[in-house]
């Protein structure tokens, strides 16, 4: 291999910006995921604020209907694919190898590829604003609304192609997580001793693997409809809009669990540590993860009660949807039992985690209400539904991700976040979100439909919408405190020890932040709480004189680590050029080279597509020529 000019020299150690661009270290990739996703979260939040400001008064004219459609489409797509999912990937990337006692992920370069595809997918989606208009058919892209005839700008094309890039990102990330978790556990860490965040990540990854290809196909077919004039979803020509809905929701429903499982894991870790108790009912929690994920594949059509399926289908999908409440209920009771009689440490992380339990339960309950077919018929496509899923995704996923940030920030940076700002953040968020999302249920029952850019004063919704908007701004102030907190805390001195919260899992057994190789040595693992066992003894023998643990080897151990690589970025650039080449390379677009004069059957050549494929292959050859480790 030494003769291969494409391979980077093994010993190269880039510094500065280059060291981040070529990094294959799971901790750095995790941090890149987190920072990028927080930026997209803020952008999606600004879109939400514009939506709420528009709706604050009846017959408001701040934004027109077209921009409003773009805003709610981009808000939904951003929050799901560019904020919550990558935040989960960020925490997973950073923490999973540390929690299972591994030195990196199974495929470090694949890990980097996942990040770059996420970044470029997000940039591709947002570049649509600059070239002719953002997607405007909703995050669910219902055909035929998303077809060329009803959505004539390139917005939906951008949406399709960027979601395909993000889909590849999620798939490669999930493949990596699955192999890492199954194959790289420390000796003694059986599947039934995995920390619950690792369980959540494993289950989520399996869901991604089995759910995402369905929407990938759905979007390819939509792309064919838009670019090659097929009619998969056009009823006039024999197509079927319901095909889109089935393919989409077969992914779309597992997707909500994809977003919420890792937060469930985060909450479990935080509540156990901050109650100074083991998690209550570990096995039941693990089985609940598996149970929810299995059932999640049997409930997709509860999004489609209103389209007129047979009563038998309605009944089955409603029944399975009720079943989801059982494992979810098990989790909620186990969290409560974990706190019960614990010696509580009430800090920002704990507050967010405890707030999560209460608020998420509301979202779960309104979900059970919506699973009842007659009720769903009544409130479908109203603000009741918006209230429901924001209670699961904001009150669920986002609160847990905030909690996780307060909890693991010292591990990632060596610095603590400010408690006072953290608690301000908590109370603003809690009050604000209740004002926005609880009232949405009520307005929905009053009959306010979703996806309308304004409403008349005679409807009587104005005062409620105004209060919701105040709530949205309170949430925004909370996020502002959060961002200020992160920026100011990073300027303080690093004071965090290995184990600032008296943790139970292995990430607290190494330094804060951990050395590049994570661990120089390893503890024996005999339970889900290896660090706790080492500090206090498996039966509390050392409780009177607890030990401290340091597996970092002082940060100076010499460990062979995988070489940095530029090829994940090159592959990503190739795929991005392919995406742009598809959008603009057909129907006389700017990237369609006219070769009709050359006497070939082909009239025009999509040069962007061809260029992208060439770049992709250069990246691929570089990748396979570089030694893997």
């Amino acid at each position, binding site marked *: *291999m030494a003769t291969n000019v494409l391979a980077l020299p093994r010993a190269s150690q880039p510094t500065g910006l280059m060291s981040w661009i070529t990094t294959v270290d799971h901790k750095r990739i995790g941090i890149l995921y987190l920072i990028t996703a927080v930026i997209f979260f803020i952008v999606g939040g600004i879109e939400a604020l514009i939506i709420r400001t528009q709706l604050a008064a009846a017959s408001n004219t701040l934004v027109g209907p077209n921009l409003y459609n773009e805003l709610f489409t981009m808000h939904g797509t951003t929050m799901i694919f560019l904020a919550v999912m990558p935040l989960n990937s960020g925490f997973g990337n950073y923490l999973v190898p540390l929690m299972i006692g591994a*030195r990196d992920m*199974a*495929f470090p370069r694949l890990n980097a590829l996942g990040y770059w595809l996420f970044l470029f997918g997000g940039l591709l989606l947002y570049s649509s604003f600059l070239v002719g208009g953002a997607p405007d058919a909703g995050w669910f892209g219902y055909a035929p609304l998303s077809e060329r005839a009803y959505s004539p700008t390139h917005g939906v094309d951008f949406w399709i192609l960027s979601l395909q890039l993000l889909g590849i990102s999620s*798939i490669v990330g999930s*493949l*990596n997580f*699955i*192999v890492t978790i*199954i*194959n*790289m556990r420390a000796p003694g*860490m059986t599947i039934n001793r995995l920390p619950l965040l690792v369980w959540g990540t494993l289950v989520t990854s399996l869901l991604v*693997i*089995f*759910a*995402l*290809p*369905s929407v*990938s*196909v*759905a979007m*390819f*077919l939509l792309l*064919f409809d838009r670019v*090659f*004039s*097929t*009619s*998969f979803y056009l009823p006039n*020509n*024999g*197509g*079927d809009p319901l*095909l889109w809905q*089935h*393919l989409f929701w*077969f992914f779309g429903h597992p997707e909500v669990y994809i977003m919420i499982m890792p937060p469930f894991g985060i909450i479990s870790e935080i509540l156990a540590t901050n109650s100074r108790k083991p998690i209550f009912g570990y096995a039941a929690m693990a089985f609940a993860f598996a149970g929810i994920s299995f059932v999640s594949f049997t409930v997709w059509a509860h999004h489609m009660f209103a389209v007129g399926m047979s009563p038998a289908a309605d009944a089955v999908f409603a029944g399975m949807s009720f079943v989801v409440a059982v494992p979810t209920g098990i989790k909620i009771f186990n969290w409560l039992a974990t706190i019960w009689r614990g010696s509580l440490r009430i800090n920002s992380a704990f507050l967010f985690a405890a707030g999560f339990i209460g608020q998420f339960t509301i979202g779960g309950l309104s979900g059970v209400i919506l699973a009842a077919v007659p009720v769903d018929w009544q409130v479908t496509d109203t603000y009741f539904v918006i209230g429901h899923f924001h209670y699961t995704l904001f009150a669920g996923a986002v609160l847990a991700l905030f909690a996780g940030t307060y909890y693991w920030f010292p591990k990632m940076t060596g610095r603590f976040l400010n408690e006072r700002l953290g608690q301000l953040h908590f109370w603003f968020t809690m009050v604000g979100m209740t004002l926005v999302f609880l009232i949405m249920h009520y307005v929905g029952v009053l009959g306010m439909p979703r996806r309308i850019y304004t409403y008349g004063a005679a409807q009587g919704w104005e005062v409620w919408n105004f209060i919701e908007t105040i709530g949205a701004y309170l949430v925004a102030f909370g996020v502002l405190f959060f961002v200020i907190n992160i920026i100011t805390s990073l300027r303080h001195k690093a004071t965090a020890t*290995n184990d600032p919260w008296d943790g139970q899992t292995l990430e607290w057994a190494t330094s804060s932040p951990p050395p590049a190789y994570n*661990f*120089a*040595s*390893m*503890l*024996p693992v*005999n339970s889900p709480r290896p660090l706790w*066992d*080492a500090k206090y*003894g*498996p039966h509390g023998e050392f409780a009177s*004189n607890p*030990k*401290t*643990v*340091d*597996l970092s*080897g002082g940060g100076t151990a010499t*460990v*062979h680590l995988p070489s940095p690589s530029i090829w994940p970025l090159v592959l990503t650039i190739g795929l991005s050029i392919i995406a742009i080449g598809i959008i603009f390379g057909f129907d006389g677009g700017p990237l369609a080279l006219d070769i009709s004069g050359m006497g070939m059957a082909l009239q025009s050549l999509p040069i962007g597509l061809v260029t992208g494929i060439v770049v992709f292959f250069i990246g691929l050859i570089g990748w*396979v020529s570089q030694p893997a480790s």
Partner: protein
Amino acid sequence: MAAVDKLEQGARRADEPLKGVLIPEHVETSTGLDHRKMVMWVFIASESIFFAALMATYLVNRDKVSLEEGPGHLDLAVASFNTFILLFSSLTMVLALQAIERAKKGRMIFLLVATAFWGLVFLGGQAFEYIELINNGITFDTNVWSSSFFALTGFHGTHVLIGIIWIVMLIIRALRGGISEHNHLAVELGGLYWHFVDLVWVVLFTIIYLI
């Protein structure tokens, strides 16, 4: 627990942190299975859903058009020949793996070339089928049946093409000395993918041409 006790017996002062046992330079995987082999299987599981969604699309659109508008122009003889070719290519792939396991590198390269060749023959048969349809006025956007047919077989054909490129890269690697009887996992992985694509075709053949 015994291990914890052993740590305790080490020469450790009371105020020094526990250090655990050093991690060896080479760590076995938890399952004993190579990472790359495991990821290949999980990837194939994911691909199955991809093709399942395409097949579902084909099946819901299959009976929406009359025979003259599409399915009647399919050529069962060509498709049967193609099926035979692809199954045969799986055989040469298996034999290639067996050859390198027995340290017969030359034979492996020959069999890989054969596999890639059969793959190309399959694509040729596919192209023949496409041209026949197009000559009968049935193209990608003619009706939902033709769209579903071209999408389903087109995605499968793309997978075959990727498989051929994969095998060519294996051949190049083998010629440059990157594959030996002690280091042939790459052949096994390429084989897994090739057999999967082959298996998908068996299902496609059944739902498109037989039922």
